Structures are given as structure tokens and as C-alpha cells.
């Protein structure tokens, strides 16, 4: 097997590749800015310079030259080479800053150059704390600068597009954003304009940067040059905690991170998953933070005199029990939803079928032409596949209307049926309508009873994407009934760990009074002489995997270690065959 020697340590490799990714993959460090694993390699930041040598091949003897000790003679390139663009070869010797003074000097020199025209506004820069330039300057940079002149001034606060703001002075011209629009989103909207130290990325004259994936450029920007318009100046990185999750705004199941401060989701960023979304996510998915924060239903609500008023959880349970007791369970329409997780749908169905209601059904939400073949799908719901695999009947709009007309009681899980125009207020008139939902909407307005349930940011639950991959979320926000301190799965940020009770950054006002569906129904079960007892989504999924064939062998640990599990559905079987 070919080998490569990095800082006097021998490594073997089987797949040819570049030196820099190899170094990074093996847990060593090497500073870089312009390199990105999913983009082309321009080698323009010159930060990953290393000494590279190769064994000398003697054509006469058809073997490598050796010295008196039998060691291969290594000939080093006269210049420092960029590790990102250098292909590995057998016997190559690489010297990084660990073993080469020359490389250490070069790293200092390049950083000094980069900082010549980079404003030192870290205290007010959004990138501070997660800024490769800041980190690498601390680690490898010079102690000070010898530059005593006025820095070059470039445009600041440019609204490049509806979602992206540019500060050209901070730009270090790594061209990652330009390459992203050329190679990944293929809109070719950005280009470097002007020349030399005056250059910066921009759109063509009069054109907007309205790429459907434009915010990825903010993520890959190694400095604070590109910022997200609706996150700018909202929070410092170290005040938030970062929780892995799944995008719930379409069927792709893009892996994301939720950034939470004081129980508000402030932004979503893509999380690397080579099987689903690589490093990217669509701009529309980032809007999901509003769903988690705004317009949430908190405490159960009951309709009195055409007005919804807050009520107690006990009253909510009692009301549901009374409704069930007062009606023929055959006349109850139980509607699951592709917008809710596998666990929620499963428990919802289990509870009501046990009472004698018919099996839950759902109405898929597919918008033809909404997908783009990349990360946007025609399927608008994150868990359509999950509902199918649970064996829920998929209604068309027409069959749903018919089913609705026959029912006297309608129990809906998280589906905005009025907002989606599947039904209107007249269809629901005269029926007893119970709505389990996360957000206030037109549907919740028409309900007799509204039960607030946890959203994807508040519970651990799993979703099956359009390709049959089941992936799960983690609880990122606290509800009134959960706590970061006791739930070990919840991530804690710096302030959670080191803050004091006198800190005023943390309040209770953003905690929503809601319960996971399984918890609420488990509490309700004894009242209706049922046995149902789930405390966590994990327990529910265990029940799912033991009772539904498609989910056999799936658990949270497997999903976590394998970045989601592809379920054995007819389609996925076909693909692997």
C-alpha cells in the first residue's frame, strides 16, 4: 500500500487524493481558508503551504536512490507547495508547521498579509467566535502587524440579495462563495469584481443575489464578509447552543443544526451528511426557525362562546375523554400528518385505534414543480414516507372531504387542514373538532379543543425522508416541563454551563407550555381505561420497530452513528437490487 510520511510519521493510504484533506482526516491540523471539500481547488489563500519532498527515482537502476543508511533520498521542492492542490504519491514526505520552521514562517507571513487589509472589528463582527481567520490568527499568526498605513476601503453593508449582506472589507477573496454559485447551485450569480487588493465578490450590475441556496455562501465564508440578513447582530456564537436536527420544511430531510439562545431558535445551519445534503441547505429551510419560535400554542385552549380560551391540562384530558365517551368511535376521523414525526403518528394511531376508532389516515402535501432535483422536493412534508410506512391511508383532497363529511368527531394531528384548503369552516361546522398542534393557525381557530404539542425543536423524534432514510431530531429548546440540566441529550452552551442564576440572558418567557403527543396520550389513557405508557420518543420508536416491519432493527443509536438509516421500503429495495 502506498505510504506518505507526514511530520516523520508514516501513514498508508489506498485512495489517491490531495495532501490537505488527508492531513485533516487524520486528525492533524493545517490552517487553510479557500479549500472546501465539496468545491474545486483554486489554491489562492496560500495558507496551507507545506514542504513537500519525493523520493528520487534512479532510471539507470530502475529503483529509488538510497543513502548510506539505506534510506530513500528525498528531494524537496524548492518552493513551498500548497497542500490542498498537491496530489499524494508513494513515499512523499510532507513537513508541516509541526516540523518545519520554514512552514511556520510562511503561515505567519500569509496571515500577516491577509490581515493587512482586513478590518480588526472582531468585537462587532458576527463571525467572531466561529471565524477561521480569527482562530488561525491566534494559533499560527504573527504577534502583531508591521503595517502602518491606511487600509483599503471597500463597500460595506451591501444587500447583495434578499437574504445576504456583504461587507467587502472583511473579504479575504477565498472565492468560496463564487465557486459555490458556479459549482453547486449553478446560478453563476457571484463573481469577483475589480482587481488586486480592491477586489470583492459581487453580482452583475443591477442583479440580485436571489439564489435559492444563497445562504450557504454565508456558512462557507471563512470571515464575516457575508452575513445572513435576518441573523445579523442577533447573537454571539458563544451565547448559543448548537443541537443537531432535521429540516422539517420539505421531504428531503436536510440535516441541520439548531442554534438556540434562551429557548429561541435563532438560526439553522446545514450539518454535513454526505448521503443527504452534503454541506448545504436551501434558504427556504432556514425560515423554519420562525415555526419554532413564533405564534406557538402554549397551554391547551378550549372554545367557549366562539372564543378559544386557555384551560388546564386536566380539563383538556377530561374534555377529550368526554368527547370519546359521548360519540360512536366509528364516527371519529383520526387524521395523522406528514408534518409530525413517526413517533407522534404511531402513538396517535395506537391510542385511537385501541379506542375502536378507524385507522389513522393522512393527506400527503405534494406541490408539483416545487422540487429542483437538489435539496428541494415536491413533497412539502418531512415525514410523508413515514406515514406511508406506518400503513396510514393516503387521502386525496376529494376522499378526505368525503371522509370528513361522514365523521362527527375529527381529531387532527398537526395538519393545517384549513390553511391547506382541505376543508373550510363550513365543513367543520357541527362537528366536534380536536386539534393537536404546535402553532396557531387557521385550523386551530376552528377547533373546539386545542392541545399544544412539542415541535421538532423540543423533542427527540424521527422523520423518514423521500428517499426512505429515517433520521432524528434532538430536543433543542426547553418546554415548561423539560430542563437542559436533567435531559442529558440536550446540548448545553457556554452560558448554560458557566452562567449564574443572576444572569439576565436566560428567562422563562420563551418556554412553551406543551407536551409531546405520547406523553399527553399516556396521561390520558388511564381515564379511558387504556394502557399506554411512553415517556420518550425513544420508547415509542422501540415499539414502532418491533411492531412495524419496515422499521425493524431501527433505533436512535443506529441513526446517530450511521447518519440515518435507510428503511427497507419497496423503492429502496429496488435501488439496492
Amino acid at each position, binding site marked *: 500500500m502506498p505510504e506518505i510520511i507526514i511530520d516523520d510519521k508514516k501513514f498508508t493510504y489506498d485512495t489517491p487524493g490531495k495532501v490537505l484533506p488527508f492531513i485533516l482526516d487524520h486528525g492533524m491540523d493545517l490552517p487553510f481558508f479557500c479549500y472546501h471539500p465539496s468545491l474545486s*481547488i*483554486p*489554491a*489562492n*489563500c*496560500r*495558507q496551507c*503551504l507545506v514542504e513537500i519532498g519525493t523520493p528520487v527515482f534512479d532510471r539507470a537502476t530502475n529503483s529509488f536512490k538510497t543513502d548510506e543508511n539505506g534510506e530513500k533520498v528525498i528531494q524537496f521542492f*524548492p*518552493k*513551498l507547495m*500548497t497542500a490542498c*492542490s498537491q496530489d499524494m504519491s508513494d513515499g512523499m514526505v510532507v513537513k508541516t508547521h509541526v516540523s518545519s520552521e520554514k512552514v511556520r514562517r*510562511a503561515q505567519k*507571513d*500569509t496571515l*500577516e*498579509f*491577509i490581515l*493587512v*487589509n482586513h478590518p480588526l472589528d472582531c468585537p462587532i463582527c458576527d463571525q467572531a467566535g466561529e471565524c477561521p481567520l480569527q482562530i488561525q490568527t491566534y494559533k499560527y499568526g504573527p504577534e502583531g502587524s*508591521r*503595517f502602518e*498605513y491606511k487600509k*483599503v476601503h471597500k463597500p460595506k453593508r451591501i444587500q447583495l440579495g434578499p437574504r445576504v449582506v456583504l461587507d467587502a472589507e472583511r473579504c*479575504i*477573496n477565498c*472565492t468560496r462563495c463564487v465557486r459555490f454559485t458556479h459549482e453547486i447551485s449553478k446560478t453563476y450569480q457571484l*463573481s*469577483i469584481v*475589480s*482587481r*488586486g*487588493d*480592491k*477586489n470583492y465578490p459581487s453580482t452583475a450590475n443591477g442583479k440580485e443575489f436571489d439564489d435559492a441556496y444563497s445562504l450557504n455562501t454565508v456558512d462557507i465564508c471563512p470571515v464575516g464578509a457575508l452575513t445572513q440578513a435576518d441573523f445579523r447582530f442577533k447573537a454571539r456564537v458563544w451565547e448559543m447552543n448548537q443541537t443537531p436536527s432535521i429540516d422539517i420544511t420539505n421531504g428531503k430531510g436536510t440535516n441541520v443544526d439548531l442554534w438556540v439562545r434562551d429557548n429561541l431558535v435563532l438560526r439553522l445551519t446545514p450539518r454535513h451528511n454526505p448521503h443527504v445534503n452534503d454541506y448545504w441547505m436551501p434558504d427556504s429551510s432556514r425560515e423554519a426557525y420562525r415555526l419554532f419560535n413564533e405564534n406557538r400554542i402554549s397551554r391547551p385552549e378550549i372554545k367557549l362562546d366562539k372564543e378559544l380560551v386557555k384551560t388546564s391540562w386536566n380539563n383538556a384530558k377530561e374534555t377529550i375523554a368526554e368527547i370519546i365517551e359521548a360519540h360512536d368511535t366509528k364516527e371519529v376521523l383520526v387524521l395523522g400528518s406528514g408534518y409530525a414525526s413517526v413517533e407522534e403518528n404511531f402513538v396517535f394511531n395506537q391510542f385511537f385505534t385501541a379506542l375502536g376508532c378507524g385507522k389513522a389516515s393522512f393527506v400527503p402535501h405534494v406541490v408539483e414543480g416545487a422540487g429542483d432535483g437538489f435539496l428541494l422536493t415536491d413533497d412539502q412534508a418531512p415525514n410523508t414516507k413515514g406515514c406511508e410506512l406506518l400503513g396510514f391511508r393516503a387521502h386525496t383532497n376529494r376522499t378526505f372531504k368525503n371522509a370528513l363529511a361522514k365523521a362527527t368527531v375529527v381529531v387532527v394531528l398537526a395538519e393545517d387542514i384549513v390553511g391547506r384548503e382541505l376543508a373550510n369552516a363550513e365543513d367543520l361546522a357541527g362537528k366536534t373538532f380536536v386539534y393537536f398542534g404546535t402553532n396557531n393557525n387557521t385550523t386551530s381557530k376552528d377547533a373546539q379543543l386545542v392541545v399544544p404539542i412539542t415541535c421538532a425543536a423540543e423533542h427527540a423524534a424521527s422523520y423518514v425522508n423521500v428517499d426512505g432514510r429515517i433520521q432524528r431530531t434532538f430536543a433543542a429548546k426547553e418546554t415548561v416541563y423539560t430542563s437542559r440540566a436533567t435531559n442529558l441529550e440536550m446540548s448545553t452552551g457556554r452560558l448554560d454551563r458557566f452562567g449564574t442564576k443572576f444572569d439576565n440572558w436566560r428567562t422563562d418567557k420563551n418556554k412553551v407550555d406543551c407536551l409531546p403527543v405520547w406523553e399527553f396520550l399516556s396521561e390520558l389513557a388511564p381515564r379511558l381505561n387504556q394502557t399506554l405508557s411512553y415517556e420518550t420518543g425513544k420508547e415509542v420508536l422501540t415499539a414502532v420497530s418491533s411492531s412495524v416491519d419496515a422499521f425493524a432493527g431501527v433505533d436512535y443509536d443506529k441513526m446517530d452513528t450511521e447518519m440515518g438509516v435507510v428503511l427497507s421500503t419497496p423503492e429502496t429495495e429496488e435501488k439496492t437490487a
Partner: protein
Amino acid sequence: MAIDFQNYKTLIIPQGGNLRDIKAYEKQGGYKALKTVFDARESAWTRENVINEVKTAGLRGRGGAGFNTGLKWSFMPKPDGGKRYLAANGDESEPGTFKDRVIFEFNPHLFIEGAIIGAYSIQADAVYVYIRGEYRSWIRFMEQAVADAYKAGYLGKNILGSGINIDMYVHSGAGAYICGEESSLMESLEGKRGYPRVKPPFPAQRGLWGRPTTINNIESLANVPLILNMGAAKYAEMGAKTHPGPVLYGISGHVNRPGVYEFPTGMLITDLIYNVAGGIRNGKKLKALVPGGSSTPILRADQIEGVSMDADSLRTAGSMMGTAGMSILDEDTDMVDFLYRISHFYHHESCGQCTPCREGTGWLEKILKKIKNGDGEMRDLDLLLDLTTQMEGRTVCALADAAAWPVRHTITRFRDEFEARCRKSVFAIA
């Protein structure tokens, strides 16, 4: 070895007749080499033979690097059925260089003939002639010449009945120095921003539109018909041994008769200044000389004694042949001012792709401006030298080197002048 330059008969720019007229060029023996090659391409002039002839003639690229042209052609991979290109570099933006312009104006067909032979030998389908955008009139001359060559059947489909097709396109640059660098020239030809490419892959592997490409200087290609006409052996005897052939010397600066002069390589610099260019103007003394375009290291008057214009001699003297665009500076020249102007140029022309060049060129200029304005300190000179080491050899292309060399060599070779302009930055405490 003294060259009998007084009796030298010019070859690239022959005397007499308007050679922009294709008829006049043919009358002078033009396109003879092309016809010979195409007539005898089955027997004597196979592609390999042409390449070998140019190789043995020892023709070295006239664009600055001085690489053997025939050797460069031999790097082209075997044809795989796809397109292959020859790009002719007439961007000519190095300050002090203005030789290709003379070929465009006075003997365009010599270049066209050479380019066709070159394209034939590397099996290129098309020749792109990249001419700097400021050369408006010269672009028109070339367009006319190319049109005439098409009409005469030297270009296009089935050239001279040989079944070989070669097209030639004249492309105007848009005013960027960096587009004279071969890989950014290709980017520019492809319609992209002129950023140099990372090598490897080299142009012979992945050039224009990802296809094998060779890039030659205009003057190098113009030498090709001369080699074939006189034979490689005779050509190799012209001028300096390791760097033979006729060269267009672009002489500018403080001389009485500046201009482009054609002589063999290996001319004594003193001959060129005092006998060819008529000496320093106003009878002043020579102070310094930049031998081959502004990026080549400057030579003091005492360094040019006995030095001739060829790669080896100039390397020994501590400089480079470059493009043979010589700038002569007389004793009144302010070296600080001179260096500031050069640094200003490189700052203005840095494409901004790589960090050391983008930021370094600007920094150099700012320090030099401070020194020029009399606010400089001694330590600034050492900082300048430090910055040149930080820039050299650490970028994708050679522009950082081109910007750093003049600074380094002008300061080391004229340090006293710079120090005289600077305030002390360290004071003795007694």
C-alpha cells in the same frame, strides 16, 4: 565574442517594401517555409522533424522565461481525436516591452507563417492570437493579415491542398497585465476573469477548454520560418551559443535613439547602448539598466561591463534576459521614484487571486510612497526586503516574483540612495 552588428541583415523585420501586403511578403520569399513543409510533409517535414528542427536550432521563447520552443511543442500529448490549440501570446504588457507590436505592424505574415507551421507540428486545430487591447491599430493590422492569409489559402480548410485544417482567430485583450501570463491568458480567451490557473495540470495536458494547448510568444513563432529557411544548424550559429537567433531589442529610456532594433542575441549591452541607440542623451553617464522588462533585476552601470544580451551572460551578471525590453537610466534618475513607479504598476495589475501578491504589492507601494515623500525610515528598507521574501515563490503565478524582484534588487543595488532618503529609525544612546 563580438558580433559584426554593423553588417547584420535583419530577418524578422526585413528592410524595404510594405510587408503587411501579402503579395510583397510572398515576393520576398514569404510562405516559402510553409509551402516546403506542406509539400514535403510525407517525407522530409513530418511533424516530428519540424519539432526536432526547432529544438536543434535552440530557439528559446522570447516571452521572458526563455524555454526551448521545440521542447515545449514536444510536450503535447498524442492526439485523442479531440481539439487541440495553439495560443500566440501578444499581450505584451510588461513595461519596457514593445517588440511584438513591430511584428504586427511590419511583418505580420512572418508570424502567421510560423504559427501555421507550429500548429501543424503540434496538430492544433486552431490558433488564437491574443493581442493586448490597447493595440487597437495593430489588432486591425493583424485582422487584415489573417484575412489575407485565409484568402490566399494558407489558413482555413484544406491548406494548400494538404487536407489539413487550421483556423486562426485574433482576440483582443481587455487591458490586464495578468492576461499575459499563459494560464490567465487561457482563462481570458475562454471568456472568464483573468486568474492564473494552478499548475499542474500544465497547458499541454489541460489548456484551453480543458484541451491540450501550447502557448508561444509572437516573436518565438515568427522565428520558426527563419529556422526552416536557413536550417537549424545555421540558425544555431547566430548570436550566443546557448540562446541563438535574432532578437528584437526594445530600447527605451534615456538614450538618443530609442526604438526596436533587430540583432542576434549575445550583443554587448554597451554596444547596444552606445552604438545602436546612439548613447545616453545629453552626454550623461549611464546609471543603471533594466535588461528585459520591468520585472527583471536592475543592473548598475558597473555591472554591465562585458555583459552581453543572452540568458547565460545576464544570469552571471545577476539579472535575466526577459523580453529584451531594455530600459536605460541615466545618472539623473531618482531610483526611489523609479522603483515607486514600478511598484505602483504591479500593485495596479495584481489580479488579487493569491494573498501574498494581492496584499504584498499594495504594501510595497505604500512603503515606497512614504519613502519617496521623504517620510521613510531606515527600518522601512528592511521591511521592504522582508516583504519580498514573503511574496517570492508563494503564489500561483509569477506576478508576485515579478513585483518583488525589482524591489529587492533595486534596494540592494542602490541601498545608499534609498538610505539617503530615509530618516534614522535607530538612534545611538550615549
